[in-house]
């Protein structure tokens, strides 16, 4: 058994090497003095300086983070509650719902983007008429529409992950909490959620990743103030990916790694 764990550990290390190989490369190249090509032309911080002064790019990063975070929260909410409710109750049309959930995953992104755009366009006129009665705000393409679009194809991932964890769960886990006098919602939070947490974390990570990287759906559902990093990067590809993109990716990776390390340290202190 221990041997198998060792082997798996070694394999995991290999896979991590595989996963991080291009990342290390792009970090290294973010310091390369030339803007294209394989050869090394000298060390420089120029690209970081350029990044610092590139306001639209940083703005785009901020947008991506906001959108991805809210998408993740919504997806986790919808996915977890959906999975649990489908598991707990025998809804009519159970299979229909179970299948519908996969439709956003199957549908090619452009179709999703175009159809949501049409949908938003169609409802925007009546919605704005209604909103005009009590608010200055106007519904249009922007953060909300992008978040809705992202959530629609992200929450199935959370749902499926949580469902897998629910399969074969001890049915008396919840009964036990209810027997001890806890109201149903509290029982859910105190018993079910901790049990589901690994799957929720998995799903949340997947949702965040998908949202950060999404291009086509975003293009069709975004407005000018919610341009995301991915849109900017895809656009820059035409001119040639200059290393300031490497720089921003590096910054992001290092920032996340730092956050993770920080979280670890905080946890250790708390113990």
């Amino acid at each position: 058994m221990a041997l198998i764990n060792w082997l798996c550990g070694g394999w995991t290390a290999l896979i991590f090497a595989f996963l991080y190989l291009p990342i290390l490369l792009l970090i290294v190249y973010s310091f390369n003095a030339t803007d294209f090509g394989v050869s090394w032309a000298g060390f420089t911080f120029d690209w970081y300086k350029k990044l610092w002064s590139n306001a639209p790019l940083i703005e785009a990063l901020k947008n991506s983070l906001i959108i991805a975070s809210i998408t993740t929260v919504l997806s986790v909410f919808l996915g977890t509650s959906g999975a649990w409710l489908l598991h707990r109750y025998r809804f009519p049309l159970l299979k229909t719902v179970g299948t519908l959930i996969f439709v956003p995953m199957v549908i090619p992104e452009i179709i999703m983007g175009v159809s949501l755009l049409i949908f938003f366009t169609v409802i925007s006129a009546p919605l704005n008429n209604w909103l005009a009665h009590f608010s200055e705000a106007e519904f249009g393409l922007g953060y909300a529409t992008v978040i809705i679009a992202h959530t629609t194809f992200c929450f199935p991932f959370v749902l499926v992950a949580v469902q897998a964890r629910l399969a074969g769960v001890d049915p008396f886990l919840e009964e036990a909490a209810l027997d001890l006098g806890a109201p149903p919602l509290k029982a859910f939070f105190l018993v079910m959620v901790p049990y589901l947490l690994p799957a929720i974390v998995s799903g949340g990570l997947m949702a965040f990743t998908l949202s950060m990287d999404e291009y086509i759906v975003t293009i069709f559902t975004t407005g000018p103030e919610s341009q995301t990093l991915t849109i900017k990067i895809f656009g820059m590809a035409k001119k040639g990916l200059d290393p300031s993109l490497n720089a921003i990716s590096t910054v992001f990776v290092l920032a996340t790694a730092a956050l993770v390390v920080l979280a670890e340290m905080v946890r250790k202190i708390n113990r």
Partner: protein
Amino acid sequence: MKTIRLLFAFALLGILAAPLHAAPKKKAGLNLFCWSEYVPQEVIDGFTKETGIKVNVENYASNEEMLAKLLAGGAKYDLIQPSEYTIEALAKADKLEELNLANIPNIKNLAPEFTKMPHDPDGKYSVPWMAGSVGIVVNTAKVKTPVKGYKDVFDGSHKKRIVVLNDNREIVSWALSFLDHSVNDITPETLEKVKPVLKEWLPQVKVYDSDSPKTALLNGDVDLGIVWSGEAAILFKKNKKFQYVLPSEHAHRFIDSLAIPKGAANKENAEKFINYILKPEVSVKISEAFPYTNPNAEARKLLSKAQLENPASYPPGDPKLETFNDIGKLAKDIDKLVTDLKGK
């Protein structure tokens, strides 16, 4: 537990507040819908500084993306940046505003060959931004035989060492030129003639790439390419071994222009912007960022020798260049033709 409850509450609030945050009242300003990276930030900033008008920029990566979004009507734009055949199509469908040329005095700076173009003969709807061509890039370090046109590219000696644009209409137009037809001579009959030509050509292609064909050339994965002139200009700047050749058969000249969609809320601001970029010193900035062909005669006077001598930006001689006409529904047939050949 508390955190989770907080998260749920936050999410719920988010959903409820979203419609209110969705879009602030459309600001009076300028809603620019343009190619990513085609409008340098300093030009935008300069405009805002001079006129005080705030510019909201939204990007797209292809004409078709722009068209799809514009036609679906979801957002209102004041300025778009279509290519010539798109302008023709939009004008035909009455989707463009007529320009008030009184607001654009700097239009006199344009070189005469860029006014009165086939897609906009009266210059009513559009003002050229940048022009370019689609031609052949040769890595002269690897290719020693002369390459003058499509014939030489696809003669079989460069099999699997070629990159071409992933644009079905472009591909078909090269075959049409090779067969000595106009690039706009697209009918079911000519498409039938094109089929066997492409059948022979396409297997020789190693990479299809419209976004960054220079990558394959720079990395040495291919030796020849049929690419946008801007890409060729960038390659030439990096290493003079990448020579640009306009095909001896016909070649496509594209004109990207600024136009105002019908129903734009800030038409005058849009015209002010057009006038601004027609200033020679501003136009030069655009040329510096993107080595395409600058249609502004006054700006050309300010360009450096190196820029003017880049054969991709300013092709010497008098090449046979044609712009694309709008082909409407035939785009469908072209797509079918190429997909069929690629997919088998």
